[in-house]
């Protein structure tokens, strides 16, 4: 299926339909939704109602008592999570969030205004969980849960990336992402996931990572990195896997082991760890930082997240160093302690190189790699040559989860400013806490929903376009594996001429290593600035 051309897609109609929102049904248009979860993906992890179904079919093959299951599930969660009840109760529909959503900005569908997207579920809540809604019905903003209403909730629950930009502007602080998260959890009671989430969840449960990489596949991939790094630097790095007694367990998203440009970030990390002489190990079991369970249900998120700590315990490491991944950090920062409490079998992380104590990681014992590297640079432990990145004019995309989800704003910028000479920020209402989503987060990075992704990514791309035109920006840096997977096609579509990199790829390029040979290429094998004519020896 061909995507519309940019000049067609940019003609966005923000005029709402004439009829009332309750009377408007979603148009299930190809390109705007993801394929249905497959039976085998659900079966593997014991999720309810595994069967063959298609979004385009009239019959979604639901259990006979689907209404009862959904409503009971809703009541149970409203009782269990006070935040959820509060978020459903207190919205005054002021509309401050309405124009903050990337899907609404880029798509124009009023039901993608976060207030109205939440209202889809809120109206059902009023009908079945409040007295006014039960008695007064539509006048009180309540409606029955019909099959069309259910399909509508499904359609829009998978048109929200849980990025929480809307929440930032809500005067009540309603976390609309939490509403989407619980809407998806309720849909999962009926077996209504998308396969781009359900497939990775099953993979992760089976192999430890979303891609389904087996131990020897991971090893093979790293062997290639080692060969390439030796060609580029003359230094043979020698990482270890599943090594008991290592001081640090490093966990990264599996996309960075097996998909470009994330692999270059991993190569940069390999060089850094080698140069430091770090006592660390990779794991072929805790081989995924991300957690697509978080896009499924709370229980599934816990189940997949726990493997990292099981492995840390088994290997008897002291602490965990986490890589450039987005939602992994939201899980770690905002959920981990509630789920598992402080971890008592690991130690409070201390950098073995600088002696810095990472007090912010006192509870979950996990340090973000940009915190780790920024600390190295601040303490003068790295020998860096930013000129090697002089061909790059860089801007930085804050991943929603590391910025809004954990407040990690300065460290990546500090590193970037130390490893390259040309860094320009995008406009201030599109970065840091106010960052625009890549348009494909929360497991919506499939290919069949490409139009939706291109629309959702438009506000981000538009801000990149601004600095591309103004400063000649040609490289978009980020610290998230979904970003690294989805921003390249987004840039090719809206801002051709801008490539995508992880921060530690640039670190690897700038890092002057003991005993290295004169570098002529960067980690991608492209000539370094000023080396264009040099023969590769």
């Amino acid at each position: 299926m061909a995507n519309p051309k940019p000049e067609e897609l940019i003609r966005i109609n923000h005029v709402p339909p004439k009829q009332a929102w309750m009377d408007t049904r979603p148009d299930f248009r190809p390109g705007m939704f993801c394929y249905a979860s497959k039976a085998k993906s659900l079966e593997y992890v014991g999720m309810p109602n595994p069967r063959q179904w298609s979004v385009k079919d009239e019959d979604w093959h639901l259990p006979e008592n689907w209404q009862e299951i959904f409503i009971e599930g809703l009541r149970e969660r409203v009782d269990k999570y006070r935040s959820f009840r509060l978020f459903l109760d207190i919205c005054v529909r002021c509309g401050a969030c309405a124009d903050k959503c990337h899907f609404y900005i880029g798509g124009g569908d009023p039901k993608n205004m976060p207030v109205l997207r939440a209202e889809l579920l809120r109206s059902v809540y009023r009908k079945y969980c409040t007295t006014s809604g039960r008695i007064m019905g539509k006048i009180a903003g309540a409606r029955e849960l019909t099959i069309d209403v259910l399909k509508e909730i499904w359609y829009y629950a998978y048109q929200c990336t849980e990025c929480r930009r809307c929440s930032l502007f809500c005067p009540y602080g309603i976390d609309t992402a939490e509403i989407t998260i619980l809407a998806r959890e309720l849909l999962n009671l009926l077996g209504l996931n998308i396969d781009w989430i359900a497939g990775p969840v099953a993979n992760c449960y089976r192999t430890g990572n979303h891609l389904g990489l087996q131990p020897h596949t991971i090893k093979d991939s790293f062997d290639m990195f080692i060969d390439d790094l030796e060609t580029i630097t003359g230094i043979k790095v020698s990482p270890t896997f599943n090594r008991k007694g290592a001081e640090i367990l490093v966990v990264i998203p599996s996309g960075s082991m097996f998909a470009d440009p994330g692999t270059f970030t991993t190569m940069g990390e390999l060089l850094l760890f080698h140069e430091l002489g770090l006592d660390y190990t990779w794991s072929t079991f805790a081989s995924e930082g991300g957690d697509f369970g978080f896009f499924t249900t709370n229980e599934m998120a816990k189940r997949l997240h726990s493997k990292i700590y099981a492995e840390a315990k088994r290997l008897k490491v002291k602490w965990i160093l986490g890589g450039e991944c987005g939602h992994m950090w939201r899980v770690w920062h905002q959920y981990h302690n509630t789920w598992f409490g402080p971890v008592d079998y690991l130690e409070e992380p201390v950098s073995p190189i600088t002696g810095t104590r990472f007090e912010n990681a006192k509870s979950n014992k996990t340090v973000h790699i940009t915190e780790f590297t920024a600390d190295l640079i601040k303490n003068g432990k790295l020998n860096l040559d930013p000129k090697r990145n002089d061909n790059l004019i860089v801007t930085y995309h804050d991943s929603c989860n590391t910025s809004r989800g954990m407040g990690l704003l300065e460290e990546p910028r500090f590193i970037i400013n130390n490893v390259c000479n040309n860094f320009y920020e995008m406009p201030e209402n599109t970065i840091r806490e106010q960052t625009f989503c890549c348009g494909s987060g929360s497991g919506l990075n499939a290919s069949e929903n490409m139009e939706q992704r291109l629309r959702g990514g438009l506000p981000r791309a538009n801000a990149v376009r601004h600095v591309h035109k103004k400063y000649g920006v040609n490289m978009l840096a980020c610290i998230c594996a979904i970003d690294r997977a989805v921003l390249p096609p987004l840039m090719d579509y809206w801002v051709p001429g801008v490539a995508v990199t992880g921060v530690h790829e640039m670190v690897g390029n700038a890092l002057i290593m003991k005993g290295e040979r004169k570098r002529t290429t960067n980690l991608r094998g492209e000539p370094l600035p000023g080396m264009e004519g040099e023969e590769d020896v």
Partner: protein
Amino acid sequence: MPFLEFEGQQLEVDEDGYLVDWESWKEGIAPIMAAQDGVELGSEHWEIIKFLREYFIKFQIAPMIKILVKEIGKAFGPEKGNTKYLYELFPGGPAKQACRYAGLPKPTGCV
């Protein structure tokens, strides 16, 4: 669920035409899939398809493009070990089109 007819059997394929069960693949299936795209498979296509198949059997995943490029270059010469050549053979992209002909499933996750 759509099907692909092959030797009197109905083989399940997904929404994008990938075989649901990679083990149900037989050599005769690739030309049928290719014909649906208006592609006639020659020996050069088969070099790639067979490599993908062998790689998948060993690693249970389709190779990264750069592995494919590297290995094809090693096995069949540098003139074939580049993305331009692979895209000429498989205009729909070696990752998508060639993997589909080889009976491999679509990759998932942060890719």
